[in-house]
């Protein structure tokens, strides 16, 4: 059995983005889901499926009680933080396609702008598990872990800081067109990028995503039901997940080939389930907690050969409107908002609806990916014809 085009995203909703928002994560989740249901024109009582991140603070029962949902017949959660976003939507699609529920909601609500909320600030003085091999030596934050891979990547393939800047500048340029983006009114120049302070050398301030409070949600239902929804359906054409062999999240140095990340196996399944090839894709939303993740993902998902992602970014290739592959057309995690990559899914939907502020008209589909470097997932969304 295949889920190809059998389900569609019919509603999207989000709260405002900011730092130090007063509402709880539960309240933000309820607001985003409520907005998504209104967008779809679907009543809360019709929702019978819920899929969320395992890290979510607002649990299913509270979501259902607050929103007045009907009987829930499918619920599930996906782990590994930034790798989970596309998978929550994929699980919702599988549940609808197999009849476990008829209308499913997937969401992410997150408040991370307080410094004490960062996971690396909450470790005890004794660390166990895989962290005992990294934290005591001062490899504390996700940015340090990815910077280590980036240095090796630059060494092996000759990628440069200019290539990383190409990513940061493309995302910022797109955010500058999106009134909902954190950096709507803040242009970024290459000079600013190059003179920014280091966070973990070779990565500087602008290689890092934002820390944002906010919530987003999508509504998934069957393709049949989607035909009479308020919005044009955006079909879930293909979905894939991956934990590659010998994976160790973020510190993937303890395997034969650390630069071949989770994207590779995820991509193999995704394309095998798809009518499209990478060359058909004209717009993509690629998980961007850090700029080098874009380079690794461009290779993993087959837009260029291994080691060629640096040069691939040259000549404005990632920029709307004329680039070969405009990415993160709402600004992405780097410049719109970082809500564990869930905003990339909503932008993928807007691209397929034609409502993006950087609309790419000629792409039949949009690739959306979740975190590279962790157990991951991806979606290929298809435009209604």
């Amino acid at each position, binding site marked *: 059995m295949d889920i190809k085009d059998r389900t569609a995203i019919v509603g999207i909703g989000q709260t405002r983005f900011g730092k130090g928002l007063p509402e709880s994560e539960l309240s933000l989740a309820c607001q985003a889901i409520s907005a998504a249901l209104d967008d779809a024109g679907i009543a809360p009582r019709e929702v019978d499926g819920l899929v969320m991140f395992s890290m979510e603070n607002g649990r299913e029962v509270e979501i259902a009680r607050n929103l007045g949902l009907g009987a829930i017949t499918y619920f599930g959660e996906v782990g590994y933080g930034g790798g989970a976003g596309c998978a929550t939507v994929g699980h919702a699609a599988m549940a609808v396609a197999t009849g476990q529920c008829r209308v499913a909601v997937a969401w992410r609500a997150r408040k991370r702008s307080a*410094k004490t909320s960062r996971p*690396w*600030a909450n*470790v005890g*003085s*004794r*660390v*166990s*598990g*895989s962290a*005992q*091999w*990294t*934290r*005591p*030596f*001062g*490899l*504390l*934050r996700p940015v*340090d872990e990815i*910077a*280590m*891979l980036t*240095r*090796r990547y630059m*060494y092996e393939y000759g990628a440069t800081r200019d290539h990383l800047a190409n990513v940061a500048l493309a995302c910022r340029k797109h955010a500058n067109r999106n009134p909902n983006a954190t950096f709507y009114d803040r242009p970024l120049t290459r000079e600013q990028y190059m003179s920014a*302070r*280091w*966070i*973990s*050398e*070779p990565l500087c301030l602008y290689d890092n995503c934002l820390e944002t409070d906010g919530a987003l949600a999508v509504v998934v239902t069957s393709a049949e039901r989607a035909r009479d929804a308020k919005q044009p359906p955006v079909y879930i054409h293909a979905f894939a997940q991956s934990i590659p*062999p*010998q994976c*160790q999240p973020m*510190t993937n*140095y*303890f*395997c*034969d080939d650390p630069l071949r990340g989770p994207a590779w196996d995820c991509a193999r399944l995704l394309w095998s389930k798809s009518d499209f090839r990478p060359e058909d894709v004209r717009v993509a939303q690629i998980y961007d907690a850090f700029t080098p993740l874009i380079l690794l993902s461009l290779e993993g998902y087959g837009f260029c050969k291994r080691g060629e992602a640096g040069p691939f970014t040259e000549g404005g290739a990632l920029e709307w409107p004329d680039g070969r592959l405009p990415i993160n057309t709402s600004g992405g995690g780097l410049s719109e908002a970082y809500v564990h990559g869930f905003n990339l899914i909503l932008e993928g939907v807007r691209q397929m609806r034609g409502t993006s502020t950087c609309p790419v008209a000629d792409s039949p589909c949009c690739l959306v990916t979740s975190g590279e470097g962790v157990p991951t997932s991806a979606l290929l969304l298809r435009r209604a014809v």
Partner: protein
Amino acid sequence: MSEQWLLPDIEDADSAPFWEAAARGELVAQVCASCGRRRMPPRPMCPQCRSLEHRWETLSGRGTIWSFVTAHPPLLPAYEAVAPYNVIVVATREDPAVRFVGNLVESPEAPFYRTNLALLQIGAPVRVVFQEVCGVYLPRWMLETSERS
């Protein structure tokens, strides 16, 4: 300040023998008793043959720098106070896929956060030294060329 460093849980069942060996000044790796494959970090089962039996092999303590970073604030307080500092990944001579995260130091006693960052270079040969922090012996690394014995 040293009591604010993060330290490994040396009573962790899978890795306690590693930290005991480190206290003796030996760098060891877990080796499958059935198929002989090395594995790092330590864990209960061999991914090659699923054997639960293993032994510990003493490595030469030699390797090369596979990659490195320089960490700058914001960091946890103890680390922020000494930033910027280096963190390296070392590929061991015995098996380049057996790697350790550590720090480059300029002498067996020198603090890792005092290392001249210009010394860091991918491919540079290094050898292990062990530094005691609150009763735990952490493997750190010196450039082979900075040996002056």
